[in-house]
């Protein structure tokens, strides 16, 4: 129990630090951000109307008062989920913009991640169990080869072959209909749009899990308790599942929890290549469009996601491995 309380304590502390840094860093930058933005919008040497700057301040929701009062106000906004307005999608609020992209990324990246994990782990476990067999060689060498490919390159290749040459799948976007609605037609359309990006993720995703699982499991198979299980007469299938695979799964499970946290960052390269309306593309747009409120919110989102994932991973490890509880 102490282990879990301590983990939660660390989590809250880090979260607070992240939020505070996210608040402080823009404010520590020299110059007035509002003025800076107006300048960027209207060009370097033009005369700037102070009213515009003031208007920008209001738009950005920059409060008056000293740093501490601002900080409290900022925390209050966060609690209400108020991140201000996005520049690129003005007058939409940042919360709305993120909300619209969130589901797309969650479905695409989340589903492919979980499937990649399952596929990769199973392949890795079998490769380890039959190590040095042809199956192992194919899986290991194959993974290593695929692992060296760049995701955007694979994406472009698929896009070219299946999108342009064969014309089987749409080449951009997440859906065709102008307004998404919850009907079969739209869902089918959305699935059709996500086939290519999902294929790229499913091709590259399992690689890490395969190699990780295989290597840990081979290490595990050399352990004395596996030898002892053999000597005990435990059937092979049970040794493979309950002894070797179960213990080898521990680091992978932590890895999965962490990777799930990373979903919130989206898949920038893939989403941009396919012009997929998820968080990754949003991040790319926010960065190139200097959409600071959006960018800041996305970063905070990613940080929180990673932290929560970390907490979950720690908790899981505590449940799965009794040694971790004591060591902490």
């Amino acid at each position, binding site marked *: 129990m102490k282990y879990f309380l301590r983990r939660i304590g660390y989590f809250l502390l880090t979260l607070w630090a992240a939020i505070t840094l996210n608040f402080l860093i823009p404010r520590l930058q020299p110059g007035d951000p509002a003025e800076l933005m107006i300048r960027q919008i209207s060009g370097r040497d033009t005369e700037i109307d102070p009213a515009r700057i003031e208007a920008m301040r209001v738009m950005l929701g920059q409060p008056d008062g000293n740093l501490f009062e601002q900080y409290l106000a900022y925390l209050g906004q966060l609690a209400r989920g108020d991140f201000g307005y996005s520049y690129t999608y003005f007058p939409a609020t940042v919360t709305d913009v993120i909300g619209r992209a969130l589901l797309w990324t969650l479905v695409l990246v989340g589903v492919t991640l979980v499937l990649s994990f399952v596929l990769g782990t199973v392949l890795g476990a079998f490769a380890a169990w039959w190590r040095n067999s042809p199956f192992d060689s194919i899986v290991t060498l194959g993974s290593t080869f695929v692992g060296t490919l760049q995701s955007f390159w694979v994406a472009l290749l698929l896009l070219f072959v299946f999108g342009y040459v064969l014309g089987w799948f749409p080449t951009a976007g997440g859906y065709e209909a102008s307004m998404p609605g919850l009907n079969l037609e739209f869902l089918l359309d959305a699935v059709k749009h996500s086939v290519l990006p999902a294929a790229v993720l499913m091709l590259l995703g399992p690689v890490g899990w395969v190699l990780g699982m295989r290597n840990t499991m081979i290490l595990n198979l050399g352990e004395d*308790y596996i*030898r002892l299980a053999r000597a005990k007469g435990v059937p092979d299938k049970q040794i493979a599942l309950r002894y070797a695979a179960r213990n080898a799964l521990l680091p992978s499970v932590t890895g999965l929890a962490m990777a799930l946290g990373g979903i919130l960052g989206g898949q920038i390269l893939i989403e941009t290549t396919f012009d997929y309306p998820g968080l990754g593309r949003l991040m790319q747009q926010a960065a190139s469009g200097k959409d600071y409120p959006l960018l800041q919110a996305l970063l905070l989102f990613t940080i929180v996601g990673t932290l929560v994932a970390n907490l979950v991973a720690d908790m899981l490890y505590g449940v799965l491995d*009794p040694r971790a509880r*004591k060591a902490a």
Partner: protein
Amino acid sequence: MDRHASAPDDVTPILEVEDLTVRYAPKLHPALDAVDHVSFSIRPGEFVGLIGESGSGKSTLGTAVLRLTERPGSITGGTIRFDGMDITSMSQEELRPYRWRDFSTVFQSSMNALNPVVRVEDQFRDAIELHSSRRGGEVVERIKELFDLVLIDHRFIRAYPHELSGGMKQRVNLALALANDPKFVLLDEPTTGLDVVVQRSILEGVRRLQAEQGFAVLFISHDIGTVMDLSDRILVMYAGRIVEEHDTDDLLREPLHPYTKGLLGSYGDPRQETVRITYVPGRPPDLSQPLQGCPFAPRCPERIDRCLTDAPPLVEMPTTRTEGAVTALRLDAAGTWRPPRAACHVALLQRTEPGTPGLPERTVRFAGPAFEKSVGETTEALRGEVLLDVADVTKVFSSRQGLRRRETLAVDGVSFQLRRGMVTALVGQSGSGKSTLARMITGVDRPTSGSITFHGRQGPVDVGTLGGSGLRGYRSLVQMVFQDPYSSLNPNKTLEYILSRPLRNHRQMGRAELGAAIDELLERVALTPARRYRSRHAFELSGGQRQRVVIARALAAEPELIIADEPISSLDVSIRAEVLDLLQRLVADSDVGILYITHDLLSARMLADDVVVLNQGRVAEHGIAIDVIRDPQDEYTRRLLDAIPNPFADIYKP
């Protein structure tokens, strides 16, 4: 059935191994037979010991007997019969029902034999439910019985393995092996790595249980003393073959094979005025190369011409006992006596054709090199000038846990003096503070209070206050010899390179002087002729030779004090004396002092003039080595002494 009344032929051996060969065929190296045409049998209830140097094939044989040989090894010939049933070529599936019900094992390094993420209870449940009809509450009852057998509190049934101490894990493993009342248990180095005192208590437990429950045991260990103490009969293995099979008591009285004599010679009685222990020079043969003659011949002091050409077969030997009339009087556990066997031309000829020309004199002792220590040398050494003065040294470690601070007293008010040309031994179990003390003497840690003064040639130095360049200068005067020569030498470097490093660093030697200095060092540690060793790589050397190189490296800096931390405990007993002998000659020939850190009182007696026994950071006893051993004043010293196996206790009365 009254076993003692049965005739030898009536007893079906529980384990019968005939002509067994186990071959290792790795992809990148030549194939070798790690077990080479081995035959022996074990009867129900018998306790048989299997000894030999590391690499002799003991564990390979043990693993093969359980049909657990793994690639690249495989059984390529012979048969294994268990309780009359041929299991040599049974499939794992056919074999499964017999596993752990009829034969079980406690593995080497079985510290890791328990699955770390599963409760002890479930690991017992596995073993019990697979092989018996016990379920649920009955299983728990059985586990409780087993825990009682090995004297462990029931509350640890629900524990995870990491919550048990090393000794407890070992006892749990033993209990696990006995879970289904097996007929045969293989013990493969079951206590290696444990403290002497803990080891003692576990092995006594094994013997007690074996007597109560009547299972047969094959006990594999390189710790010959323990094996001798426990076993009814001994198998001696060398280069994959059994070279001698002999009842323990008879073997101690009249060892047949020179190799057995060599192994036995590494034990001496520490209470004697003069202790003599022998060592077997050289290293075991490379089994991937074809062998001609007896594999032991190159290391054998008794060899005759025939040994170099013909491999001696393992045959029954007439001994003093079989020659006399007492033969059938003494019966072993199974009620029969079997004649000893040995694979040695010399032993056979000495007993059958004593007139053969060129035959060496019959001897029970190893005729090879020996190391002797007598009390006279100590009196001499006590006149040297003080080199190291440890005065009332205390070390407190504090660790923080949350907001609480916990203080551990690692060393508590220790004082002793080390003189030039003398060896002082720090003796104690793990956790006694001996390593902490060594760290303070080398300047790695500072004492919390008290002082350590080093009286070097350049005047006295207070070690506790040294820092920076002072410390660097001091460290070239104090050199360490570590426990494991396999990990303290880079195996891929030549001896020339290894020895040139300290010569350059500490003595700023140029290329011109290096050659001569390296040769001199090699000669000092008796790696001669130096020319031949200079360009050899560390991996080509035996453990004893490697430890010599480590010592030579320490000497290169021209130290005034050498700290030897368990320098022989990772070496095979057959070569330990070799290293002791070298250290002894070092102190005799120069005025260095040696601080010898060990858990082993026997080796302390062999090497040291002065013994400091540490217990929980405090000096339990301090005195002249021979006095401490002959007349220990402290209860703890007595316990350490009792833990030394002494197979000769009944044979040679002091």
